[in-house]
């Protein structure tokens, strides 16, 4: 079986879970004997041995910066890219990708098309038009997740909706997301298969625990970690409000906010206004070794997302042995039992649970151990098997 897969970003040139998921899934599909042609919009300097990478645009200008900005709303993206190239916004980039996809689909041979998120749906649809092959629309996050339902971008919504209706089958990263697609896009639930994400265990293989004592810092202080884009969808503002409550009870805690995003300045100001700026550390975007280290430094991981289609970071944190408190408004809460769950808006509960994990060593230890064991079974291999079943059902 040969799959023409359209993605937008790929590690190490990724700004979030989409790239990680595309990497994990294609690698595991390859292990299942599936030949993956992975298309990216712009040439980046990366190589993998499990699939063939095809770059739609071989001579891009400043590709990395543009790809990374894609999680932002088209308006903000427009502002960032201004001056880079004349007047080209994100929607134009997406359309241009579709044009280039047409040529690729003509040139290559494949059995099925698989497109990830709205950024790639036009490319997927174009490839389907040219080749007549079935299209899978994979949904990692809807416009409703990104915006919280406020200030929806109509163009993005229209592209998503068209992608869902033109697709032969939709893959959603969770039941949580499937319900959103049914509710907000009017799609028949039978058309949607749930393919949960997995954890790449290789990521957790590196151990820094012993080298991370930070000169005795860890003996006195606990570290609570937020890791994700600093944007409305991820609920970093709720994390700060909970931090304030925790610190009133237990001052020996540091709150680390790892990630970059449009709310960064606002969050720094909030930390100052709340009077906790000395206990909140902003690290910016982390990857590779630094990412591993921050997970392993953390005494607790909190994912307070307002709307989280899946939440790969929760699996990563658990894989590194950090206990996790995760938002009930998330896909990952469907697959993980050994964690604590809260409603993102329930600051009191969030703070109470943070304090409990820090205060009761037995709880910390049990959550850590059982969580780490549990995620060993949430693998990309399982995701790939489900994915392959969907391919086969579509191909009949």
């Amino acid at each position, binding site marked *: 079986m040969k799959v023409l897969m359209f993605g937008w970003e790929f590690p190490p040139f990724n700004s979030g879970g989409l790239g990680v998921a595309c990497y994990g899934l294609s690698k595991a599909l390859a292990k299942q004997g599936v030949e993956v042609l992975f298309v990216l919009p712009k040439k980046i300097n990366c190589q993998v041995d499990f699939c063939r990478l095809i770059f739609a645009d071989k001579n891009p200008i400043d590709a990395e910066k543009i790809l990374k900005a894609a999680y932002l709303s088209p308006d903000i993206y427009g502002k960032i890219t201004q001056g880079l190239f004349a007047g080209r916004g994100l929607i134009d980039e997406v359309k241009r990708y579709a044009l280039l996809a047409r040529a690729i689909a003509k040139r290559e041979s494949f059995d099925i098309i698989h497109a990830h998120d709205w950024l790639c749906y036009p490319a997927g649809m174009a490839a389907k038009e040219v080749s007549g092959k079935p299209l899978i629309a994979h949904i990692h996050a809807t416009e409703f997740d990104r915006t919280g339902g406020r200030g929806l971008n109509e163009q993005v919504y229209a592209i998503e909706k068209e992608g869902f209706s033109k697709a032969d089958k939709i893959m959603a990263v969770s039941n949580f997301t499937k319900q959103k697609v049914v509710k907000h896009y009017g799609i028949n639930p039978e058309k949607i298969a749930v393919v949960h994400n997995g954890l790449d265990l290789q990521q957790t293989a590196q151990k820094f625990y012993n080298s991370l004592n930070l000169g005795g810092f860890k003996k006195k202080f606990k570290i609570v970690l937020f890791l994700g884009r600093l944007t409305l969808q991820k609920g970093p503002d709720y994390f700060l409000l909970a931090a304030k409550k925790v610190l009133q009870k237990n001052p020996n805690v540091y709150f680390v906010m790892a990630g970059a995003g449009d709310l960064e300045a606002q969050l720094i100001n909030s930390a100052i206004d709340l009077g906790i700026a000395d206990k909140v550390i902003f690290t910016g975007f982390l990857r590779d070794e630094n990412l591993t280290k921050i997970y392993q430094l953390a005494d607790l991981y909190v994912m307070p997302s307002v709307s989280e289609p899946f939440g790969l970071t929760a699996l990563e944190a658990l894989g590194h042995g950090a206990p996790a408190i995760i938002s009930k408004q998330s896909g990952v809460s469907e697959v993980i039992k050994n964690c604590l769950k809260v409603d993102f808006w329930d600051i*009191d509960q969030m703070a*109470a649970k943070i304090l409990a994990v820090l205060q009761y060593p*037995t*709880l910390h230890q*049990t959550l850590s151990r059982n969580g780490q064991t549990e995620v060993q079974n949430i693998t990309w291999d399982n995701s790939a098997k489900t994915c392959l079943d969907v391919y086969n059902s579509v191909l009949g």
Partner: protein
Amino acid sequence: MPSVCLYLQTHQPYRLKNFSIFDIGQNHDYFDTPANKNYLERITRKSYLPTNKLLLELIRQHRGKFKVALGLSGVLLEQLEESFPAVIEGFQKLTATGCCEILGETYHHSLAYLYSPSEFQTQVAMHNRKIKKLFNIQPKVFRNTELMLNNQMAKQVEGMGYQGILGEGADYILGWRSPNFVYQAKDGGKTKLLLRNYQLSDNISFRFSCRDWNEWPLTAGKFAAWIKDNQGRGEVINLFMDYETFGEHQWEETGIFEFLKNLPGEILKYPENNFQNPAEVIKLYKPKAELDFPNIVTWADTERDLSAWLGNKMQQEALQKIYSLENAIKETKNKKLLNTWRKLQTSDHFYYMCVKWFADGDVHKYFSPYESPYDGYITFMNIFNDLKLQLK
């Protein structure tokens, strides 16, 4: 001549309310009174009232040939007296027939036996007083929480005036032997053991409504035939299960009440069969052999051990912590504190912290007020810390 010994256990804990870390030192209100009343209202309506009524009808209909033994925890009786006295009256009507025996147990359905011999004795005495007061009965046979049993316990309850004790007919204790005889425990004194026939008991309590089961649907006639099959291979068939099997674990819609209604008649159709209560069974039959129960055996899960209550560190710690307050609590001579401390010993609190979910799952989640075992531990530990603060 096989006797059937039907024993129904009924108990409901005082569930805890969501007591957060921010509540410590702020209030001492630990129990979720409205929720407990709601649970009890539902169980009363679905199970206690209709089952009591049916059992009474059956005793009358069979003119004393149908018998049933009950285990009534003190914490349940207390809650019923407070909110649903009609259920107590139902139990009283049953015991007044002379065909309903009540067994001894710990008032608080606790694991005190494992942690404090003196507290264990106190709670058994408290239960005795309660049963005496409500039913004018002196229990002769003992049943420890969740059918816990080992050699030493058999010996100890003899010293407390009991003639017999109930236990689980676990395969790893019985080996080739049948559970359908009376036994004694190694070094267990004269105490006689009645061991649960888990196969036949679970056919009612777990499998009755299970459509994947090849014996579904189970009729009273079929069940009575199984009892008859044991003729010549045993003297007493011990059917021990939760009272709530009738109407709550198995809903009315499954036909469980029809089954119960017809069961005595079908069993008594075979003239060699009869119903006997535990105190009669141990008079009628001699112990067949001595069995060795070196470790505690229970009726829980597939392991038949204490792992449902003590299987993980959170449970071990919570139990150890609550019993660590024993002396300090008793020294205060404060009745309210003592009462609260005892209610916190009820085994359900620790059962809710069990993370063995994944296989035995559904049973553990049943009636649990918590989203996860971890939340159960947090709530319990917060309350423990508040209680401890009150002692200073």
